[in-house]
């Protein structure tokens, strides 16, 4: 990370480095870079600042340089060993002495604990070489309890940690003592933290630090974003009624990345995400480079490609696999091997989007849809951490629509366009967690805490009523029925301060801190296969090798005997025993369950817009391969190319069903929601819909009734079918039973502290003392629909798994601009989404209908 590129000229910046630093730079043959000095100048002037720079620009050194210099110049630097390591007997005295000599000076916060550990290692080198009297330590979930205890009493000069650990420190009674003298917070990878609830939690922690440490300033380090202003506001306290911003320092220069698309051949698929047609090309590219990162969008894709690359690996190239579900030890081994340059390629998911310097990567391959311009740029930036050489990236489209998306992405990269999302509105469930944390730290006055919370940029618009509702929730659950006063977690004392009612409350808070709610994961263990029988009651040899973890909901779709790809091989599902999935090796060559779960990230609105423009005008088709041009030309001739701003709806019969296909280009999540709502309306119109399937670009619904004919006869109005009012009652009715909504509610309930996290190993004992959040959701929805947790869940649904907001914007945009084409057969543009039927999960009506079918099948089976 502290690898320092040989500098270009330092163009007359007047900031002088202290001599010891100047000598150190010179000894390494370096000159300080302009942005490093500029950031130093901001720090000296007592200003907070945001540095935007690509990887390889010496960003981390820039972030730490001001602190290293200040600490080296500090009066009474702590060089006395006795002072640095106080005897336990005079712990508090010693720590206070330490405080007078400095105390904790700089806090560094990273989204990854591996990054914190790596940065600490890298910082130790300049500190040692300059013999600076600076103590640097990390604090993560892995730090031993004894050291964490000691760090609170006798803090280092620089502490490197994560947002969750910061929340824990703030919730301890030592917080005020620990942070009173804090001078700087360095926030790394800020662009990545602020997009999720973790950023909300961090913003609240930051607001608290600003109050505890009056002389505090911040430095944010970020990749390029669409709106740096958002991050500049995040970094400083927001005054009531107006806005404040940190200063902005932007690194300019560096070679532009070179991104190309692998020219697809005649065999380019119409649909699917496997990119099977390109495996041989990927292998060739890997062979021709030193180290290649192969990014894919989903875990199952990573598994598949890894598996196939090894099948053709005649050269025995060192190709490794990395994704978030693999065993941690396994992942660390891959990372270490990569840093040492021992790997030819790593097939990975977003698990490697962020992180430490992975050595000499000279090529990044992105398989499948890039999804967003900024996302792609950041991935490609992982290649060649040297500024004078361009990063090289190759995009591999897996189907025809992805060719359009890759082409649009390459144009976006050339234009240096960014599409990172705007700053979040702070979530209420996260606020609830923070309020409880504050009470665990020290008793608080509601007025003071509210004033503090609204200085955090994501919460600047929070109303006092919502804040009070959150405090009420934390205290007694916030229910209209005031029956839990005696069970309160926090209570208002006669001194006007809220305090926790029992030390147990603080203990529980500490176990449940954080905003990352993992999907319930099950361990995957390799066992010997049993012949024949399946089910719960059989005995299986226990204690096989642990392969990693898989989401519970994936296993729920499997039947014992099904085969799927995991950890690089094809496995057979044997049984679920407590929280472990037992699998065995199998001789099958094709997995039965394709298990494509679309990536977490939907297509960005910006990139979708570019794809639409590209598609709509044949003058832009020059860069497209022949097969794709031909496809679009026939579409133009047979139906129509969707124009920007309009919604094309095609209806046609196919295989004794009637289809309705539309092309909103709003991403799979918004399309799924649209599909759910649209089928309800088709049901009401007595068209008897049977199901639908959604892709990033299109939605196809099929029915027994003929929607096209109904439109032609004037019995069905497309304007009414796609009216915004579907987001009213229809949405509410669907949310009542939506599994996605229930999952969203569960996450909010855990973050807000209503129910507790499940910990591995506790599953069995806890099952008896837990209550299903689905049942809680049903009851709460009926009895208190405006409860704060339901509001939090609805806010999440607007942007998360249901993407309701994007759908709403789209529906309002296309009003009066719906074009209907009634065709006699499937259109070329509809083929990709039609091919997803049977491959993607098919959504149907309420599950009662499915139950009826299952019962009928059973009858047939019994009578046949």
């Amino acid at each position, binding site marked *: 990370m502290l690898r320092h590129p040989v500098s270009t000229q330092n163009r007359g910046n007047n900031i002088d480095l202290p001599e010891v630093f100047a000598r150190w730079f010179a000894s390494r043959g370096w000159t300080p870079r302009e942005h490093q000095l500029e950031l130093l100048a901001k720090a000296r002037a007592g200003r907070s600042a945001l540095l935007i720079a690509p990887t390889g620009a010496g960003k981390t050194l820039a972030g730490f340089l001001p602190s290293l210099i200040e600490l080296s110049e500090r009066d009474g630097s702590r060089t006395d060993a006795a002072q640095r390591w106080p005897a336990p007997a005079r712990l508090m005295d010693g720590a206070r002495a330490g405080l007078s000599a400095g105390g904790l000076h700089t806090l560094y916060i990273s989204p990854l604990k591996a990054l914190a550990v790596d940065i600490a290692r890298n910082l130790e080198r300049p500190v040692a070489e300059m013999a600076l009297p600076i103590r640097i330590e990390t604090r993560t979930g892995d730090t031993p309890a004894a050291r964490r205890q000691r760090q609170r009493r006798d803090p280092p000069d620089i502490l490197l940690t994560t947002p969750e650990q910061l929340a824990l420190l703030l919730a301890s009674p030592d917080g005020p003592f620990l942070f009173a003298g804090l001078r700087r917070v360095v926030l790394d990878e800020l662009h990545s933290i602020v997009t999720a609830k973790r950023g909300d939690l961090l913003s609240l922690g930051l607001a608290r630090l600003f109050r505890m440490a009056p002389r505090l300033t911040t430095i944010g380090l970020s990749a390029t974003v669409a709106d740096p202003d958002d991050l500049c506001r995040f970094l400083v306290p927001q005054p009531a009624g107006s806005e404040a911003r940190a200063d902005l320092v932007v690194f300019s220069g560096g070679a532009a990345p070179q991104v190309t698309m692998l020219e697809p051949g005649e065999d380019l698929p119409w649909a699917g995400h496997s990119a099977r047609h390109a495996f041989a090309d990927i292998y060739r590219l890997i062979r021709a480079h030193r180290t290649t990162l192969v990014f894919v969008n989903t875990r199952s894709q990573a598994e598949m490609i890894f598996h196939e690359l090894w099948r053709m690996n005649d050269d025995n190239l060192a190709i490794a696999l990395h994704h978030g579900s693999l065993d941690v030890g396994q992942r660390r081994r891959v990372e270490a091997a990569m840093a040492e340059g021992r790997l030819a390629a790593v097939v990975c998911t977003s698990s490697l989007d962020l992180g430490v310097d992975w050595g000499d990567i000279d090529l990044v391959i992105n398989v499948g849809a890039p999804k967003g311009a900024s996302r792609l740029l950041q991935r490609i930036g992982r290649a060649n951490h040297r500024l004078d050489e361009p990063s090289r990236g190759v995009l591999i489209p897996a189907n025809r629509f992805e060719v359009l998306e890759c082409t649009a992405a390459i144009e976006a990269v050339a234009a240096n366009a960014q599409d990172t999302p705007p700053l979040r509105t702070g979530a209420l469930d996260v606020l609830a967690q923070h309020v409880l944390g504050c009470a665990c730290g020290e008793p608080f006055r509601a007025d003071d805490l509210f004033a503090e919370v609204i200085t955090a940029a994501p919460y600047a618009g929070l109303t006092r009523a919502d804040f009070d509702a959150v405090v009420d929730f934390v205290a007694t659950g916030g229910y209209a029925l005031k029956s839990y006063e005696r069970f309160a977690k926090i209570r208002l004392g006669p001194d006007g301060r809220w305090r926790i009612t029992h030390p147990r409350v603080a203990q529980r808070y500490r176990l449940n801190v954080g905003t990352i709610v993992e999907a319930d994961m099950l361990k995957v263990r390799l066992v010997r296969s049993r012949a024949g029988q399946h089910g719960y009651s059989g005995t299986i040899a226990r204690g096989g090798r642990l392969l990693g973890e898989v989401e519970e909901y994936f296993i729920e779709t499997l039947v014992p005997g099904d085969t799927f790809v995991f950890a690089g091989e094809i496995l057979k599902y044997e049984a679920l025993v407590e929280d472990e999935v037992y699998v065995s090796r199998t001789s099958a060559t094709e997995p039965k369950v394709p298990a494509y779960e679309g990536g977490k990230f939907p297509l960005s609105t910006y990139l979708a817009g570019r794809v639409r423009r590209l598609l709509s005008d044949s003058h832009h088709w020059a860069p497209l391969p022949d097969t794709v041009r031909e496809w679009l030309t026939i579409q133009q001739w047979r139906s129509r190319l969707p124009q920007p701003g309009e919604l094309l709806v095609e209806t046609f019969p196919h295989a004794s069903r009637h289809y309705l296909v539309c092309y909103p280009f709003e991403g799979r999540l918004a399309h799924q929601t649209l599909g759910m709502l649209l089928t309800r309306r088709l049901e009401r119109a007595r068209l008897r819909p049977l199901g639908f399937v959604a892709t990033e670009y299109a939605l196809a619904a099929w029915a027994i009734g003929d929607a096209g004919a109904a439109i032609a006869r004037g019995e069905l109005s497309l304007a009414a079918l796609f009216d915004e009012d579907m987001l009213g009652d229809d949405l509410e009715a669907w949310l009542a039973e939506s599994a996605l909504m229930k999952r969203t509610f569960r996450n909010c309930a855990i973050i807000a502290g209503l129910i507790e996290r499940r910990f591995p190993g506790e599953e069995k004992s806890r099952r008896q003392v837990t209550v299903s959040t689905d049942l809680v959701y049903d*009851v709460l929805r009926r*009895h208190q629909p405006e409860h704060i947790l339901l509001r939090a869940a609805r806010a999440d649904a607007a942007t998360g798994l249901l993407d309701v907001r994007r759908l709403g914007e789209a529906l309002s945009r296309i009003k009066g601009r719906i074009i209907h084409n009634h065709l006699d057969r499937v259109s070329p543009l509809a083929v990709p989404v039609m091919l997803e039927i049977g491959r993607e999960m098919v959504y149907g009506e309420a599950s009662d209908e499915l139950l009826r079918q299952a*019962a009928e099948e059973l009858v047939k089976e019994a009578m046949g």
Partner: protein
Amino acid sequence: MKGAALRATDADRVELDGLCTEASLEGASLVLDPAGALYWPQERALVVADLHLEKGSSFAARGVLLPPFDTAATLARLKSVIMRYAPRLIIALGDSFHDGRGPARLAPGDRAALLGLQQSRDWLWIAGNHDPGCAEGIGGRFAARIALGGITFQHEPAPQLQGVIAGHLHPMARLNVRGRGISRRCFVSDGRSLVLPAFGAYAGGLNVRHRAFAHLFGTGFIAHLLGQHRLYAVAGARCLPD
């Protein structure tokens, strides 16, 4: 729920229009209601199991502040079933309260609603493992079990016993239909004995493929899954394990 579709016309006859399922046990003909209750027309007895009233406040006492509306929700559903059948006897098959102090925690409104349901009919609290003793202020009579016309009603089912109707296990069945997993509470019966689904709003479920059911029924049982308006019968062997 189309409540009027099914009503008690007299003590012995109930008209069915396909919403409910008829089951028989020891020669008695029983009605399984999709709300999760069992009605025995001949005795005009309505049976519900595992109400787990005051489960929310039981959790709250331990620091998990679940919404306190579960008792009201459970009683409201029970009321609608009672209105449909107008039984002369109600049997609550144990675990009616989530814990022994549950009756004391009842909110005044909920207590009044419960006592209101008992007007002009008999109410029998069968002892469960969560609520083994008698309690004050909740009306009704208390018993460990009761035998009625050859059928024994008790909280816990027991293997090798003929004619037992019980609760305790909270049966839930899981199916995979066209790639979608569906889980529902259900009745379980092999024609010799029968287990009711839990009726309580916060009561969880135990998969019918769990060994506890194999222990009782072997593999030859039918699960009657609760749908919105009707029951769906599925052979136990066709239900999925967890």
